């Protein structure tokens, strides 16, 4: 993988043309672990996307549940013999496999929505801070600094204690917790880019400030943001699961993975491990695959590490 970069530019003409994207893809593929992560992530995303098609039962439809099937171990048949519960059932006779697939949707959905929200907010504030400078810069960065000196879980806990339960509220809490990471990253990147010649040229052409920021500055600030965003999706999912586990996150009607695990906690002590174990495994696989991808992305996109 290093040969391509060491080769002088003229030599690149003989092989396939080296575009930045192609280089990143090649560097990324250099780590087998990262590829495994990517494959895992793709599988998880597909499973969540097609959950209604894949799952044997609709876990939200109470008519499909049979309390007689409650707390069955993995692999048992349902009382009427119509289906097999590969991962067992919970206390209400819900098929764990279906519950996990649907829970995965909610966990991923909340994680991605919160990340996008935080990304948008952080991006806007970070760019404003870097481009406007002065008081706005000081204000935004001070608030970010103070906020980042407190652990995310604490801020989220407090917000949820004030706001109450609900999907929208947990997304608000996650956005409030995470925007500062993006604001800081964007500002750092934008400060570096701002002093470069192409921005000076654009300013010299008397282009409107909004155009310079959006068309010139923004695209060049993206690589570090992508890295932060990947890792933060995982953090958001983990945080949501933790909050739901503590009983402060999502409403019980449409359980995310964290809530499923929490539901199984009481049965764990009597040896019925599957109600907590399998949702946890799904959560772990999700977070881990995202982290593996994010880790490799950071190495690939970080110019300092390019040997």
């Amino acid at each position, binding site marked *: 993988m290093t040969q391509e970069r060491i080769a002088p530019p003229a030599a690149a003409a003989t092989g396939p043309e080296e575009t930045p994207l192609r280089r990143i893809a090649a560097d990324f593929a250099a780590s087998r*672990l990262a590829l495994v992560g990517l494959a895992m992530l793709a599988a998880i995303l597909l499973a969540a996307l097609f959950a209604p098609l894949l799952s044997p039962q609709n876990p939200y439809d109470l008519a499909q549940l049979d309390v007689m099937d409650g707390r069955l171990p993995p692999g048992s048949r349902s009382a009427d013999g119509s289906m097999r519960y590969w991962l067992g059932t919970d206390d209400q006779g819900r098929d764990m496999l279906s519950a996990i697939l649907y829970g995965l949707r909610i966990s991923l959905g909340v994680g991605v929505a919160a990340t996008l929200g935080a990304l948008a907010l952080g991006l806007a504030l970070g760019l404003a801070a870097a481009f406007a400078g002065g008081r706005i810069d000081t204000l935004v960065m001070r608030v970010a600094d*103070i906020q980042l*000196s*407190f*652990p995310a*879980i*604490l801020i989220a*806990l*407090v917000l949820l*204690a*004030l706001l109450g339960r609900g999907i929208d509220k947990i997304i608000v809490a996650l956005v409030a917790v995470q925007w500062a990471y993006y604001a800081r990253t964007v500002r750092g990147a934008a400060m570096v880019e701002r002093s470069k010649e192409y921005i000076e040229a654009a300013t010299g052409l008397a282009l409107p400030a909004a155009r310079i920021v959006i068309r010139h500055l923004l695209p060049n600030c993206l690589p570090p943001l992508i890295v932060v965003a990947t890792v933060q999706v*995982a953090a958001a999912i*983990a945080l949501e*699961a*933790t909050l739901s*586990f*503590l*009983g*402060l996150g999502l409403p019980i009607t449409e359980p995310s993975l*964290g809530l499923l*695990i929490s539901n*199984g*906690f009481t049965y*764990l*002590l009597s*040896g019925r*491990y599957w109600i*907590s*174990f399998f949702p*946890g495994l799904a*959560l*772990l696989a999700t*977070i*881990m695959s995202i*982290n*593996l991808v994010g*880790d490799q992305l950071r190495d690939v996109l970080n110019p300092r590490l390019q040997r």
Partner: protein
Amino acid sequence: MLVYVIRRVMQSAVVLLVMSGLVFVGVFAIGNPVDILVNPNADQQDIERAIKDLGLDRPLWEQYLVFLRQAALGDLGNSFVFNVPALQLILERMPATLELAVAAMLIGVVLGIPLGLWAGLKPDSISGKAIMAGSILGFSLPTFWVGLMLIMVFSVHLGWLPASGRGPTTSLFGVQVSFFSWEGVKHLIMPATNLALIKLSLIIRLTRAGTREALVQDYVRFARAKGVPERRVIGVHVLKNIMIPIVTVIGLEFGSVVAFAVVTETIFAWPGMGKLLIDSINVLDRPVIVAYLLLIVALFVLINLVVDLGYCALDPRVRLADARV
């Protein structure tokens, strides 16, 4: 140095003030403060008297000043549930949480730095890669799920360790601690390990990254060229330079460990202040929530201050940069 210390202390005081304002606005001004401060079971007369007593008919800034004065006197209201001062309630639970946090941090440091050094020195060896894979796992494993799995394996299946509670405590200088008796240690092992996991991964990664960056620096090459024994190069030249970020993180993360103890304490029914917070949120015991918040804010400000001053003592560049200003 003295100027720096004074300036940092002033900064901390300002942050404390700002945060107390935020907590005030957050808990007292959003929503009806009467709901927060008056027992929901009180009758109409009591409520009206309380509004007057609490000065809720006065402007917000005046209320804030009153709140500040009472907070400064250590009066943060009584718990609805226990009917004792909220602050006292939390301070009683604090030693349990701090013990847990210190134990977790010790596990993280004692295991993390050597493992990270090893992974940094031999990044391409199988053991180095295994350590890194393990640290990714440690990052990815949701803390609460690991806690459940620990209980499942060690309490339910093997029956080696107790699943919940703190066990017997011994008094040490008037503070109840549990690490003096074997039974207490047995209760401490699982929660502390659980809490240590993420910090352990963090310290491993930080040490590894620092080691890898330090190894290619000129001072390390020079030390090697000079014929300094490898042990001294690693133990002195490398370790001393990577200690700065590590000490910072250990310091800063201590606060986050205390905060994250909320989760661990809930799982293991550890009678600390984190469990108290969750219980209080669930029953809307707001004076306790406010008291916990203010206390933890104070703790964080204090930790940040200590870390910064420690930084200053460790890294001459910080002192010099400040002297020039």
